[in-house]
Protein backbone atom coordinates (compact mmCIF):
# COMPACT_ATOMS: atom_id res chain seq x y z
CA UNK A 1 0.00 0.00 0.00
CA UNK A 2 2.70 2.48 1.02
CA UNK A 3 4.64 1.78 -2.18
CA UNK A 4 1.81 3.22 -4.28
CA UNK A 5 1.78 6.52 -2.38
CA UNK A 6 3.79 9.57 -3.45
CA UNK A 7 7.04 10.02 -1.48
CA UNK A 8 5.67 12.73 0.86
CA UNK A 9 2.67 10.61 1.79
CA UNK A 10 4.80 7.54 2.29
CA UNK A 11 7.02 9.54 4.61
CA UNK A 12 4.03 10.83 6.55
CA UNK A 13 2.53 7.37 6.84
CA UNK A 14 5.71 6.01 8.34
CA UNK A 15 6.02 9.00 10.66
CA UNK A 16 2.42 8.66 11.76
CA UNK A 17 2.86 4.96 12.45
CA UNK A 18 5.87 5.70 14.58
CA UNK A 19 4.15 8.60 16.36
CA UNK A 20 1.20 6.37 17.18
CA UNK A 21 3.43 4.42 19.53
CA UNK A 22 4.20 7.65 21.35
CA UNK A 23 0.76 8.89 22.33
CA UNK A 24 -1.84 8.16 24.96
CA UNK A 25 -4.36 6.93 22.42
CA UNK A 26 -3.40 3.27 22.14
CA UNK A 27 -6.87 1.94 21.40
CA UNK A 28 -5.65 -1.65 21.21
CA UNK A 29 -4.14 -1.54 24.71
CA UNK A 30 -6.43 -2.66 27.55
CA UNK A 31 -4.46 -0.34 29.83
CA UNK A 32 -5.68 2.64 27.79
CA UNK A 33 -9.30 1.69 28.33
CA UNK A 34 -8.64 1.01 31.99
CA UNK A 35 -7.22 4.54 32.24
CA UNK A 36 -10.24 6.01 30.45
CA UNK A 37 -12.79 4.19 32.63
CA UNK A 38 -11.10 5.17 35.91
CA UNK A 39 -10.67 8.81 34.88
CA UNK A 40 -14.26 9.12 33.64
CA UNK A 41 -15.77 7.51 36.73
CA UNK A 42 -13.64 9.44 39.20
CA UNK A 43 -13.98 12.56 37.07
CA UNK A 44 -17.68 12.70 37.76
CA UNK A 45 -17.01 12.70 41.51
CA UNK A 46 -14.12 15.16 41.18
CA UNK A 47 -16.30 17.65 39.30
CA UNK A 48 -19.06 17.36 41.89
CA UNK A 49 -16.50 18.14 44.61
CA UNK A 50 -15.31 21.20 42.73
CA UNK A 51 -18.96 22.27 42.46
CA UNK A 52 -19.22 22.04 46.23
CA UNK A 53 -16.11 24.18 46.71
CA UNK A 54 -17.43 26.67 44.16
CA UNK A 55 -20.74 26.77 46.01
CA UNK A 56 -19.01 27.34 49.36
CA UNK A 57 -16.96 30.27 48.10
CA UNK A 58 -17.21 31.22 44.41
CA UNK A 59 -14.56 33.95 44.57
CA UNK A 60 -12.27 31.88 46.79
CA UNK A 61 -12.54 28.94 44.42
CA UNK A 62 -11.65 31.08 41.39
CA UNK A 63 -8.78 32.73 43.25
CA UNK A 64 -7.50 29.31 44.35
CA UNK A 65 -7.41 27.98 40.80
CA UNK A 66 -5.87 31.21 39.51
CA UNK A 67 -3.05 31.12 42.03
CA UNK A 68 -2.44 27.42 41.55
CA UNK A 69 -2.22 27.74 37.79
CA UNK A 70 0.40 30.45 38.27
CA UNK A 71 2.31 27.96 40.43
CA UNK A 72 1.69 24.85 38.34
CA UNK A 73 2.68 26.15 34.89
CA UNK A 74 6.33 26.88 35.71
CA UNK A 75 6.61 23.61 37.63
CA UNK A 76 5.11 21.75 34.67
CA UNK A 77 7.61 23.35 32.29
CA UNK A 78 10.56 22.84 34.60
CA UNK A 79 9.82 19.13 35.01
CA UNK A 80 9.00 18.65 31.33
CA UNK A 81 12.25 20.28 30.24
CA UNK A 82 14.34 18.27 32.70
CA UNK A 83 14.46 15.37 30.28
CA UNK A 84 17.40 16.52 28.21
CA UNK A 85 17.44 14.33 25.16
CA UNK A 86 14.01 12.95 24.60
CA UNK A 87 11.00 15.01 25.67
CA UNK A 88 8.02 12.87 26.56
CA UNK A 89 4.92 13.00 24.34
CA UNK A 90 2.61 15.75 25.50
CA UNK A 91 -0.48 13.52 25.49
CA UNK A 92 1.15 11.12 27.96
CA UNK A 93 2.43 13.96 30.12
CA UNK A 94 -1.01 15.57 30.25
CA UNK A 95 -2.55 12.15 30.95
CA UNK A 96 -0.27 11.88 33.98
CA UNK A 97 -1.39 15.27 35.29
CA UNK A 98 -5.04 14.28 34.78
CA UNK A 99 -4.52 10.98 36.55
CA UNK A 100 -3.03 12.76 39.57
CA UNK A 101 -5.66 15.51 39.60
CA UNK A 102 -8.75 13.40 39.00
CA UNK A 103 -8.27 9.69 39.63
CA UNK A 104 -5.63 9.74 42.36
CA UNK A 105 -7.24 12.54 44.42
CA UNK A 106 -10.69 10.96 44.28
CA UNK A 107 -9.54 7.43 45.08
CA UNK A 108 -7.18 8.70 47.78
CA UNK A 109 -10.01 10.65 49.42
CA UNK A 110 -12.00 7.46 49.79
CA UNK A 111 -9.03 5.32 50.79
CA UNK A 112 -7.67 7.79 53.36
CA UNK A 113 -11.04 7.86 55.06
CA UNK A 114 -11.25 4.07 55.21
CA UNK A 115 -7.75 3.57 56.59
CA UNK A 116 -8.37 6.49 58.96
CA UNK A 117 -11.13 4.41 60.52
CA UNK A 118 -8.62 1.63 61.14
CA UNK A 119 -6.21 4.02 62.87
CA UNK A 120 -9.05 5.40 64.98
CA UNK A 121 -10.23 1.91 65.89
CA UNK A 122 -6.76 0.72 66.84
CA UNK A 123 -5.36 3.86 68.46
CA UNK A 124 -8.36 5.77 69.74
CA UNK A 125 -9.40 9.31 68.85
CA UNK A 126 -6.49 11.19 70.46
CA UNK A 127 -3.88 9.04 68.76
CA UNK A 128 -5.82 9.19 65.52
CA UNK A 129 -5.98 12.98 65.57
CA UNK A 130 -2.19 13.15 65.71
CA UNK A 131 -1.21 10.24 63.52
CA UNK A 132 -3.90 9.45 60.95
CA UNK A 133 -2.44 11.78 58.31
CA UNK A 134 1.00 10.23 58.75
CA UNK A 135 -0.10 6.60 58.87
CA UNK A 136 -2.59 6.59 56.01
CA UNK A 137 -1.91 9.29 53.40
CA UNK A 138 1.74 8.51 52.57
CA UNK A 139 1.35 4.95 51.37
CA UNK A 140 -2.23 5.31 50.12
CA UNK A 141 -1.58 8.45 48.10
CA UNK A 142 1.83 7.40 46.80
CA UNK A 143 0.43 4.06 45.64
CA UNK A 144 -2.49 5.69 43.84
CA UNK A 145 -0.37 8.41 42.25
CA UNK A 146 2.37 6.08 41.08
CA UNK A 147 -0.32 3.87 39.56
CA UNK A 148 -0.53 6.62 36.94
CA UNK A 149 3.12 6.08 36.02
CA UNK A 150 2.57 2.33 35.79
CA UNK A 151 -0.41 2.94 33.51
CA UNK A 152 1.61 5.20 31.21
CA UNK A 153 4.23 2.44 31.01
CA UNK A 154 1.53 -0.08 30.10
CA UNK A 155 -0.16 2.19 27.56
CA UNK A 156 3.04 3.18 25.76
CA UNK A 157 5.62 0.60 26.78
CA UNK A 158 8.39 1.97 24.57
CA UNK A 159 8.23 5.48 25.92
CA UNK A 160 9.64 4.90 29.38
CA UNK A 161 13.23 3.95 28.70
CA UNK A 162 15.08 5.75 31.45
CA UNK A 163 14.69 6.86 35.05
CA UNK A 164 14.28 10.47 33.97
CA UNK A 165 11.14 9.48 32.08
CA UNK A 166 9.75 8.00 35.28
CA UNK A 167 10.61 11.15 37.15
CA UNK A 168 8.78 13.29 34.59
CA UNK A 169 5.62 11.15 34.60
CA UNK A 170 5.68 10.73 38.38
CA UNK A 171 6.16 14.43 39.02
CA UNK A 172 3.31 15.24 36.65
CA UNK A 173 1.00 12.87 38.56
CA UNK A 174 2.14 14.56 41.77
CA UNK A 175 1.58 18.03 40.31
CA UNK A 176 -2.01 17.24 39.33
CA UNK A 177 -2.64 15.79 42.78
CA UNK A 178 -1.08 18.76 44.57
CA UNK A 179 -3.15 21.34 42.69
CA UNK A 180 -6.50 19.67 43.42
CA UNK A 181 -5.56 18.97 47.03
CA UNK A 182 -4.53 22.62 47.47
CA UNK A 183 -7.91 23.81 46.19
CA UNK A 184 -9.50 21.61 48.85
CA UNK A 185 -7.28 23.11 51.55
CA UNK A 186 -7.68 26.72 50.42
CA UNK A 187 -11.48 26.52 50.40
CA UNK A 188 -12.21 23.77 52.93
CA UNK A 189 -9.56 24.41 55.56
CA UNK A 190 -8.38 28.01 55.10
CA UNK A 191 -11.97 29.17 54.72
CA UNK A 192 -12.21 30.22 51.07
CA UNK A 193 -12.09 33.93 51.85
CA UNK A 194 -9.56 36.05 49.93
CA UNK A 195 -7.31 36.33 52.98
CA UNK A 196 -7.76 32.63 53.76
CA UNK A 197 -6.84 31.56 50.24
CA UNK A 198 -3.79 33.85 50.21
CA UNK A 199 -2.76 32.50 53.61
CA UNK A 200 -3.16 28.95 52.33
CA UNK A 201 -1.17 29.77 49.23
CA UNK A 202 1.64 31.15 51.35
CA UNK A 203 1.69 28.16 53.70
CA UNK A 204 1.19 25.32 51.21
CA UNK A 205 2.76 26.64 48.02
CA UNK A 206 5.17 29.51 48.67
CA UNK A 207 6.65 27.95 51.81
CA UNK A 208 6.22 24.25 51.15
CA UNK A 209 5.55 23.84 47.42
CA UNK A 210 9.02 22.49 46.73
CA UNK A 211 8.69 19.50 49.02
CA UNK A 212 5.30 17.99 48.32
CA UNK A 213 3.63 15.56 45.96
CA UNK A 214 5.71 16.52 42.90
CA UNK A 215 8.87 15.37 44.60
CA UNK A 216 7.42 12.28 46.28
CA UNK A 217 5.87 10.82 43.16
CA UNK A 218 8.79 11.85 40.97
CA UNK A 219 10.96 9.66 43.16
CA UNK A 220 8.51 6.75 43.10
CA UNK A 221 8.18 7.16 39.31
CA UNK A 222 11.95 6.83 38.91
CA UNK A 223 11.72 3.46 40.63
CA UNK A 224 8.98 2.26 38.28
CA UNK A 225 10.98 3.42 35.28
CA UNK A 226 14.12 1.71 36.55
CA UNK A 227 12.27 -1.54 37.07
CA UNK A 228 10.68 -1.53 33.63
CA UNK A 229 13.48 -0.06 31.53
CA UNK A 230 16.40 -2.14 32.81
CA UNK A 231 15.06 -5.46 31.64
CA UNK A 232 18.10 -7.41 30.50
CA UNK A 233 20.55 -4.99 32.13
CA UNK A 234 19.80 -5.72 35.78
CA UNK A 235 18.40 -8.75 37.56
CA UNK A 236 14.71 -8.83 38.38
CA UNK A 237 15.58 -8.82 42.06
CA UNK A 238 17.64 -5.65 41.70
CA UNK A 239 15.03 -3.92 39.54
CA UNK A 240 12.21 -4.70 41.94
CA UNK A 241 14.46 -3.79 44.88
CA UNK A 242 15.25 -0.35 43.44
CA UNK A 243 11.57 0.27 42.63
CA UNK A 244 10.45 -0.74 46.11
CA UNK A 245 13.30 1.22 47.69
CA UNK A 246 12.47 4.46 45.89
CA UNK A 247 8.75 4.00 46.58
CA UNK A 248 9.61 3.47 50.25
CA UNK A 249 11.76 6.62 50.22
CA UNK A 250 8.81 8.58 48.84
CA UNK A 251 6.50 7.12 51.48
CA UNK A 252 8.96 7.84 54.30
CA UNK A 253 9.41 11.42 53.07
CA UNK A 254 5.64 11.85 52.94
CA UNK A 255 5.30 10.25 56.38
CA UNK A 256 7.81 12.68 57.91
CA UNK A 257 5.99 15.55 56.27
CA UNK A 258 2.62 14.51 57.73
CA UNK A 259 3.83 13.31 61.13
CA UNK A 260 3.97 15.37 64.33
CA UNK A 261 7.74 14.80 64.43
CA UNK A 262 10.01 17.80 63.84
CA UNK A 263 6.91 19.95 63.76
CA UNK A 264 8.07 23.55 64.10
CA UNK A 265 5.02 25.03 62.40
CA UNK A 266 3.36 27.78 64.48
CA UNK A 267 -0.16 27.11 65.71
CA UNK A 268 -1.39 30.35 64.13
CA UNK A 269 -0.25 33.28 62.04
CA UNK A 270 -0.50 36.13 64.51
CA UNK A 271 2.89 37.77 64.11
CA UNK A 272 5.59 38.38 61.52
CA UNK A 273 7.69 35.78 63.30
CA UNK A 274 5.00 33.16 62.66
CA UNK A 275 5.02 33.95 58.94
CA UNK A 276 8.79 33.72 58.79
CA UNK A 277 8.82 30.49 60.78
CA UNK A 278 6.69 28.60 58.23
CA UNK A 279 9.29 28.33 55.42
CA UNK A 280 11.87 27.32 58.02
CA UNK A 281 9.59 24.66 59.49
CA UNK A 282 8.82 23.37 56.00
CA UNK A 283 12.51 23.20 55.15
CA UNK A 284 13.29 21.17 58.28
CA UNK A 285 10.75 18.54 57.23
CA UNK A 286 11.21 18.64 53.49
CA UNK A 287 14.79 19.57 52.70
CA UNK A 288 16.45 16.18 53.39
CA UNK A 289 14.26 14.37 50.87
CA UNK A 290 14.49 17.29 48.44
CA UNK A 291 18.29 16.96 48.54
CA UNK A 292 17.96 13.22 47.92
CA UNK A 293 15.68 13.80 44.94
CA UNK A 294 17.96 16.47 43.46
CA UNK A 295 20.92 14.08 43.70
CA UNK A 296 18.87 11.24 42.17
CA UNK A 297 17.77 13.45 39.26
CA UNK A 298 21.32 14.70 38.74
CA UNK A 299 22.61 11.12 38.65
CA UNK A 300 19.86 10.09 36.25
CA UNK A 301 20.67 12.98 33.92
CA UNK A 302 24.37 12.17 34.06
CA UNK A 303 23.62 8.59 33.28
CA UNK A 304 21.42 9.63 30.40
CA UNK A 305 24.29 11.69 28.96
CA UNK A 306 26.76 8.81 29.41
CA UNK A 307 24.30 6.47 27.75
CA UNK A 308 23.90 8.79 24.76
CA UNK A 309 27.65 9.22 24.41
CA UNK A 310 28.30 5.49 24.61
CA UNK A 311 25.55 4.65 22.15
CA UNK A 312 26.57 7.20 19.54
CA UNK A 313 30.35 6.96 19.85
CA UNK A 314 30.24 3.73 17.89
CA UNK A 315 28.21 5.50 15.22
CA UNK A 316 30.88 8.12 14.55
CA UNK A 317 32.09 7.84 10.98
CA UNK A 318 28.78 6.48 9.75
CA UNK A 319 26.31 8.69 7.90
CA UNK A 320 24.26 8.88 11.10
CA UNK A 321 26.28 11.39 13.09
CA UNK A 322 29.53 13.31 13.01
CA UNK A 323 31.83 14.07 15.94
CA UNK A 324 30.81 17.72 15.98
CA UNK A 325 27.13 16.82 15.85
CA UNK A 326 27.64 14.47 18.78
CA UNK A 327 29.36 17.23 20.73
CA UNK A 328 26.37 19.49 20.22
CA UNK A 329 23.88 16.74 20.95
CA UNK A 330 25.48 15.90 24.31
CA UNK A 331 25.28 19.46 25.57
CA UNK A 332 21.67 20.66 26.00
CA UNK A 333 22.75 24.30 26.07
CA UNK A 334 24.77 23.93 22.87
CA UNK A 335 21.88 22.02 21.35
CA UNK A 336 19.41 24.82 21.98
CA UNK A 337 21.96 27.40 20.87
CA UNK A 338 22.57 25.57 17.60
CA UNK A 339 18.83 25.60 16.83
CA UNK A 340 18.65 29.30 17.70
CA UNK A 341 21.61 30.08 15.48
CA UNK A 342 20.13 28.05 12.66
CA UNK A 343 16.88 30.00 12.94
CA UNK A 344 18.80 33.27 12.70
CA UNK A 345 20.88 32.08 9.74
CA UNK A 346 18.39 30.13 7.70
CA UNK A 347 14.91 30.61 9.11
CA UNK A 348 12.27 28.62 11.00
CA UNK A 349 12.10 25.68 8.60
CA UNK A 350 15.83 25.06 8.84
CA UNK A 351 15.68 25.28 12.65
CA UNK A 352 12.80 22.82 12.68
CA UNK A 353 14.72 20.46 10.42
CA UNK A 354 17.77 20.68 12.65
CA UNK A 355 15.65 19.82 15.67
CA UNK A 356 14.34 16.81 13.80
CA UNK A 357 17.83 15.73 12.87
CA UNK A 358 18.80 15.85 16.54
CA UNK A 359 15.70 13.89 17.49
CA UNK A 360 16.45 11.24 14.88
CA UNK A 361 20.01 11.01 16.16
CA UNK A 362 18.65 10.30 19.65
CA UNK A 363 16.47 7.61 18.04
CA UNK A 364 19.63 6.29 16.38
CA UNK A 365 21.18 6.02 19.84
CA UNK A 366 18.17 4.06 21.08
CA UNK A 367 18.47 1.57 18.23
CA UNK A 368 22.23 1.31 18.73
CA UNK A 369 21.73 0.74 22.46
CA UNK A 370 19.77 -2.42 21.74
CA UNK A 371 23.12 -4.00 20.83
CA UNK A 372 22.03 -4.73 17.29
CA UNK A 373 24.71 -5.73 14.71
CA UNK A 374 26.37 -2.94 12.68
CA UNK A 375 24.42 -3.89 9.58
CA UNK A 376 21.07 -4.34 11.22
CA UNK A 377 18.48 -3.08 8.71
CA UNK A 378 16.81 -0.80 11.24
CA UNK A 379 20.14 0.75 12.17
CA UNK A 380 21.10 1.25 8.53
CA UNK A 381 17.70 2.75 7.83
CA UNK A 382 18.05 5.19 10.72
CA UNK A 383 21.52 6.27 9.57
CA UNK A 384 20.10 6.96 6.13
CA UNK A 385 17.27 8.89 7.68
CA UNK A 386 19.71 11.11 9.56
CA UNK A 387 21.81 11.60 6.46
CA UNK A 388 18.86 12.54 4.31
CA UNK A 389 17.71 15.14 6.85
CA UNK A 390 21.22 16.53 7.06
CA UNK A 391 21.51 16.70 3.27
CA UNK A 392 18.20 18.50 3.03
CA UNK A 393 19.27 20.89 5.75
CA UNK A 394 22.61 21.67 4.16
CA UNK A 395 20.87 22.41 0.89
CA UNK A 396 18.89 25.19 2.50
CA UNK A 397 20.26 28.67 1.93
CA UNK A 398 22.24 29.92 4.90
CA UNK A 399 22.12 26.63 6.77
CA UNK A 400 25.75 25.73 6.19
CA UNK A 401 28.27 28.23 7.54
CA UNK A 402 30.60 28.90 4.56
CA UNK A 403 33.65 29.82 6.60
CA UNK A 404 33.87 26.58 8.52
CA UNK A 405 33.28 23.71 6.13
CA UNK A 406 35.03 21.14 8.26
CA UNK A 407 33.75 22.29 11.60
CA UNK A 408 30.33 21.77 13.08
CA UNK A 409 28.06 22.19 10.08
CA UNK A 410 25.20 23.83 11.92
CA UNK A 411 26.48 25.23 15.17
CA UNK A 412 29.15 24.97 17.76
CA UNK A 413 29.52 22.79 20.80
Amino acid at each position, binding site marked *: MAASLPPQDRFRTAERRRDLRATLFQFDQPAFWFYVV*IVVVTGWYAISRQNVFHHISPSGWVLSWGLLIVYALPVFLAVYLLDLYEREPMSLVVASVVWGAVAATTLAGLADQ*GWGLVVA*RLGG*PEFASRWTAALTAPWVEEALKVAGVVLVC*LIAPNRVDDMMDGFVYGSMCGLGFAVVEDVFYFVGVFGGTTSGVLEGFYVRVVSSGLYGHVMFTGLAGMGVAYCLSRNGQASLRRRVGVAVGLFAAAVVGHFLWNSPWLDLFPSGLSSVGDWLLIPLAAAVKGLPLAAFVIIAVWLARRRERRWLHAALSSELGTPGISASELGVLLDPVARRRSVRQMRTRAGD*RAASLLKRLQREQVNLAMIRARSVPDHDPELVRQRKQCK*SIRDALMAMPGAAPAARPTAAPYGSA
Partner: protein
Amino acid sequence: MDSRSALGSDASGGLPPPVAGPPMDRRPRSSAILPPLLMTVAILVVVSGGYVAAGALSERVGPPVMIGGAVRVSPLSGWQVARRFTDPPGVRFTRGVGNLDVLAASFAGDASGVARRYVDRSLKPNAVRLSVSPSTVPVRLGSGLEGVRLHYVGSFGGEQASVEGEVTAFVTPSGIGVVFDAWAPQGLLQYVVDDTRAMIEDAAVG
Protein backbone atom coordinates in the same frame (compact mmCIF):
# COMPACT_ATOMS: atom_id res chain seq x y z
CA MET B 1 14.86 17.61 -7.35
CA ASP B 2 16.05 20.74 -5.58
CA SER B 3 15.82 20.06 -1.89
CA ARG B 4 15.18 23.75 -1.26
CA SER B 5 11.97 23.73 -3.28
CA ALA B 6 10.85 20.57 -1.55
CA LEU B 7 11.51 22.03 1.84
CA GLY B 8 9.72 25.17 0.79
CA SER B 9 6.42 23.37 0.73
CA ASP B 10 7.02 20.76 3.37
CA ALA B 11 10.10 20.36 5.46
CA SER B 12 9.99 16.62 5.03
CA GLY B 13 8.73 16.48 1.49
CA GLY B 14 12.09 16.26 -0.25
CA LEU B 15 13.47 13.53 1.95
CA PRO B 16 13.70 9.98 0.78
CA PRO B 17 10.86 8.00 2.27
CA PRO B 18 12.07 5.93 5.18
CA VAL B 19 11.31 2.27 5.05
CA ALA B 20 8.59 1.41 7.50
CA GLY B 21 9.90 1.07 11.05
CA PRO B 22 9.89 -2.06 13.12
CA PRO B 23 6.52 -3.62 13.82
CA MET B 24 4.69 -1.93 16.66
CA ASP B 25 4.98 -3.53 20.05
CA ARG B 26 1.89 -5.68 20.27
CA ARG B 27 1.83 -8.18 23.05
CA PRO B 28 -0.56 -11.08 23.04
CA ARG B 29 -3.95 -9.87 24.23
CA SER B 30 -4.03 -12.11 27.31
CA SER B 31 -0.76 -10.75 28.65
CA ALA B 32 -1.83 -7.18 27.87
CA ILE B 33 -5.01 -7.61 29.89
CA LEU B 34 -3.30 -9.07 32.95
CA PRO B 35 -1.50 -5.92 34.21
CA PRO B 36 -4.64 -3.72 34.19
CA LEU B 37 -6.51 -6.51 35.95
CA LEU B 38 -3.83 -6.70 38.61
CA MET B 39 -3.93 -2.92 38.93
CA THR B 40 -7.69 -3.04 39.39
CA VAL B 41 -7.29 -5.52 42.23
CA ALA B 42 -4.51 -3.47 43.83
CA ILE B 43 -6.52 -0.22 43.63
CA LEU B 44 -9.60 -1.95 45.06
CA VAL B 45 -7.54 -3.25 47.97
CA VAL B 46 -6.07 0.19 48.68
CA VAL B 47 -9.40 2.01 48.39
CA SER B 48 -11.74 -0.41 50.12
CA GLY B 49 -9.31 -2.30 52.38
CA GLY B 50 -9.59 0.26 55.16
CA TYR B 51 -13.36 -0.05 55.36
CA VAL B 52 -13.17 -3.83 55.42
CA ALA B 53 -10.47 -3.83 58.09
CA ALA B 54 -12.29 -1.21 60.19
CA GLY B 55 -15.48 -3.27 59.92
CA ALA B 56 -13.64 -6.36 61.12
CA LEU B 57 -12.20 -4.39 64.05
CA SER B 58 -15.60 -2.99 65.07
CA GLU B 59 -16.94 -5.96 66.97
CA ARG B 60 -19.87 -5.78 69.32
CA VAL B 61 -18.54 -6.63 72.75
CA GLY B 62 -20.28 -7.24 76.02
CA PRO B 63 -24.00 -7.44 76.61
CA PRO B 64 -26.36 -4.79 75.17
CA VAL B 65 -27.14 -1.92 77.55
CA MET B 66 -30.79 -1.06 78.17
CA ILE B 67 -31.70 2.63 78.58
CA GLY B 68 -35.08 3.80 79.91
CA GLY B 69 -36.75 0.60 78.88
CA ALA B 70 -36.86 1.89 75.30
CA VAL B 71 -33.37 1.68 73.82
CA ARG B 72 -30.87 -1.17 73.71
CA VAL B 73 -27.31 -0.21 72.65
CA SER B 74 -24.54 -2.70 71.90
CA PRO B 75 -21.17 -1.00 72.53
CA LEU B 76 -18.41 -1.59 69.99
CA SER B 77 -15.03 -2.83 71.10
CA GLY B 78 -13.19 -0.11 73.02
CA TRP B 79 -16.38 1.54 74.26
CA GLN B 80 -17.52 1.17 77.83
CA VAL B 81 -20.20 2.53 80.12
CA ALA B 82 -18.75 5.50 81.98
CA ARG B 83 -21.79 6.90 83.74
CA ARG B 84 -25.50 6.42 84.22
CA PHE B 85 -28.08 9.22 84.43
CA THR B 86 -31.39 9.07 86.22
CA ASP B 87 -33.39 12.11 85.11
CA PRO B 88 -33.99 11.51 82.34
CA PRO B 89 -32.67 7.96 82.34
CA GLY B 90 -29.53 7.61 80.28
CA VAL B 91 -26.08 6.13 79.85
CA ARG B 92 -22.74 7.64 78.79
CA PHE B 93 -20.49 5.40 76.70
CA THR B 94 -16.85 6.47 76.45
CA ARG B 95 -13.88 5.65 74.32
CA GLY B 96 -10.87 7.84 75.09
CA VAL B 97 -11.99 11.41 74.56
CA GLY B 98 -15.02 10.33 72.54
CA ASN B 99 -18.42 10.03 74.23
CA LEU B 100 -21.92 8.93 73.37
CA ASP B 101 -24.74 9.97 75.71
CA VAL B 102 -27.99 8.06 75.21
CA LEU B 103 -31.14 9.44 76.89
CA ALA B 104 -34.75 8.27 76.76
CA ALA B 105 -37.94 9.82 78.16
CA SER B 106 -41.59 10.13 77.31
CA PHE B 107 -42.22 12.80 74.70
CA ALA B 108 -45.25 14.08 72.83
CA GLY B 109 -44.04 15.41 69.52
CA ASP B 110 -41.76 14.61 66.62
CA ALA B 111 -38.05 13.93 66.37
CA SER B 112 -37.20 17.58 65.63
CA GLY B 113 -39.00 18.54 68.82
CA VAL B 114 -36.95 16.07 70.85
CA ALA B 115 -33.74 17.43 69.37
CA ARG B 116 -34.76 21.05 70.05
CA ARG B 117 -35.80 20.23 73.59
CA TYR B 118 -32.49 18.49 74.26
CA VAL B 119 -30.59 21.54 73.00
CA ASP B 120 -32.74 23.93 75.06
CA ARG B 121 -32.86 21.96 78.31
CA SER B 122 -29.59 20.03 78.39
CA LEU B 123 -27.03 21.88 76.29
CA LYS B 124 -27.90 25.57 76.59
CA PRO B 125 -28.14 25.75 80.40
CA ASN B 126 -24.64 24.27 80.76
CA ALA B 127 -23.02 26.12 77.88
CA VAL B 128 -20.73 29.12 78.20
CA ARG B 129 -20.90 29.42 74.42
CA LEU B 130 -22.99 27.34 72.03
CA SER B 131 -23.50 27.29 68.29
CA VAL B 132 -26.07 24.87 66.85
CA SER B 133 -26.58 24.02 63.18
CA PRO B 134 -29.58 25.99 61.91
CA SER B 135 -31.25 23.01 60.27
CA THR B 136 -31.55 19.29 60.88
CA VAL B 137 -30.91 16.44 58.47
CA PRO B 138 -33.12 13.36 58.31
CA VAL B 139 -31.75 9.97 59.39
CA ARG B 140 -33.27 6.53 59.25
CA LEU B 141 -32.43 3.49 61.35
CA GLY B 142 -32.13 -0.01 59.96
CA SER B 143 -35.47 -0.76 61.63
CA GLY B 144 -37.11 1.97 59.54
CA LEU B 145 -37.56 4.45 62.40
CA GLU B 146 -36.98 8.00 61.14
CA GLY B 147 -35.30 10.76 63.07
CA VAL B 148 -33.23 13.93 62.72
CA ARG B 149 -29.62 14.95 63.24
CA LEU B 150 -27.99 18.27 64.12
CA HIS B 151 -24.53 19.47 65.04
CA TYR B 152 -23.20 21.84 67.65
CA VAL B 153 -19.98 23.43 68.88
CA GLY B 154 -19.60 25.00 72.29
CA SER B 155 -17.83 25.38 75.60
CA PHE B 156 -19.40 23.83 78.66
CA GLY B 157 -18.91 24.40 82.38
CA GLY B 158 -15.32 24.78 83.47
CA GLU B 159 -13.87 23.09 80.40
CA GLN B 160 -11.38 25.23 78.51
CA ALA B 161 -11.49 23.33 75.23
CA SER B 162 -14.41 23.58 72.83
CA VAL B 163 -16.58 20.54 72.35
CA GLU B 164 -18.25 19.50 69.14
CA GLY B 165 -21.19 17.16 69.05
CA GLU B 166 -23.71 15.41 66.86
CA VAL B 167 -27.24 14.97 68.23
CA THR B 168 -29.49 12.29 66.73
CA ALA B 169 -33.09 12.14 67.92
CA PHE B 170 -36.04 9.77 67.44
CA VAL B 171 -39.53 9.33 68.79
CA THR B 172 -40.68 5.73 69.14
CA PRO B 173 -44.22 4.72 68.15
CA SER B 174 -44.95 4.27 71.86
CA GLY B 175 -44.11 7.94 72.52
CA ILE B 176 -40.58 7.71 73.94
CA GLY B 177 -38.17 10.42 72.85
CA VAL B 178 -34.63 9.09 72.39
CA VAL B 179 -31.52 11.27 72.08
CA PHE B 180 -28.03 10.15 71.07
CA ASP B 181 -25.41 12.85 71.69
CA ALA B 182 -21.97 11.94 70.28
CA TRP B 183 -19.40 14.47 71.46
CA ALA B 184 -15.67 15.01 71.75
CA PRO B 185 -13.20 17.88 72.02
CA GLN B 186 -13.34 20.00 68.90
CA GLY B 187 -11.43 18.40 66.04
CA LEU B 188 -11.65 14.89 67.49
CA LEU B 189 -15.26 14.00 66.80
CA GLN B 190 -14.39 12.88 63.27
CA TYR B 191 -12.35 10.04 64.77
CA VAL B 192 -15.22 8.58 66.77
CA VAL B 193 -18.26 9.55 64.76
CA ASP B 194 -18.17 6.43 62.60
CA ASP B 195 -18.29 4.32 65.75
CA THR B 196 -21.12 6.31 67.28
CA ARG B 197 -23.14 6.23 64.09
CA ALA B 198 -22.63 2.47 63.85
CA MET B 199 -23.86 2.03 67.43
CA ILE B 200 -26.89 4.24 66.76
CA GLU B 201 -27.61 2.37 63.53
CA ASP B 202 -27.53 -0.94 65.41
CA ALA B 203 -29.46 0.27 68.45
CA ALA B 204 -32.82 -1.31 69.08
CA VAL B 205 -35.15 1.67 69.58
CA GLY B 206 -38.78 1.18 70.47
